[in-house]
């Protein structure tokens, strides 16, 4: 079912506040102007089935069996090994009564943390970027 809004790019705005998505419009349920000098933006006035299309970063599915494949790109799978080792080495550093073992484990934990951070946070997007080809700019038509 289509909406009654002819130009959503002019009549609709969105923003996020915490866990909430806010959609505001300046038209009524018939698509006519719905503003006054003091009230420019209001909640949408009509129910539109499938009216909003969102693109977002989503939570990967969890793993629950040994045969599961982690729900992220395969180029990031080895980073999971680093994350687990980071935690296990830190556990070992905390449990060990030997200061030498504790220090070495702590250093190993930091090394794996660094690899995890580089893979996921620092270079994750760049290394996995699937964009290619020539770049072009499409300027708006101002005529």
């Amino acid at each position, binding site marked *: 079912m*289509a909406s009654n809004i002819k130009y959503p790019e002019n009549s609709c705005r969105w923003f996020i506040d915490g866990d909430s998505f806010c959609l505001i419009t300046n038209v009524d349920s018939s698509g006519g102007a719905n503003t006054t000098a003091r009230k420019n933006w209001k909640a949408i006035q009509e129910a539109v089935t499938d009216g909003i299309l969102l693109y*977002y970063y989503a939570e990967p599915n969890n793993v629950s069996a040994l045969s599961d494949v982690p729900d992220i790109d395969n180029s990031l799978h080895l980073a999971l090994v680093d994350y687990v080792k980071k935690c296990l080495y830190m556990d070992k550093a905390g449990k060990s009564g030997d200061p030498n073992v504790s220090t070495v484990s702590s250093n190993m934990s930091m090394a794996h943390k660094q690899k995890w951070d580089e893979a996921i946070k620092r270079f994750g997007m760049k290394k996995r970027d699937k964009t290619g080809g020539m770049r072009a700019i499409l300027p708006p038509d101002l005529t």
Partner: protein
Amino acid sequence: MAVHSITVKQILSRIRQVFPDVPETYVMNLINDALVEAGMYNSKVVHAKMSTAANQMWYDLKDAAKDSSNNVLEVNKIFRVYFMDNDGDYILIPRLIDKDLLLTDVSSESALQAPDSR
């Protein structure tokens, strides 16, 4: 030609090279922790549809929030929004940076009777 990916079992075997006695449940929990953290970055891009309700300004994006087909959305960060126009086509709509927008009528919240975390 299949893409090389590794299973939880293969991750566990790599971990056990160094920590032979580590319980598999613990490793699985750590992998899930890692997946939650990875989800905060650009690791899984999804698109989904939501329906609007008349006179409703706010829409829930909590972990359990659902799309118009009752599937869980699992949103971490929205980066693009389209709205259906009168031809049934989806048109990109702009995001407001300023949330404290003057000249906004929030009379849609007049039904609010108790504190709502939505």
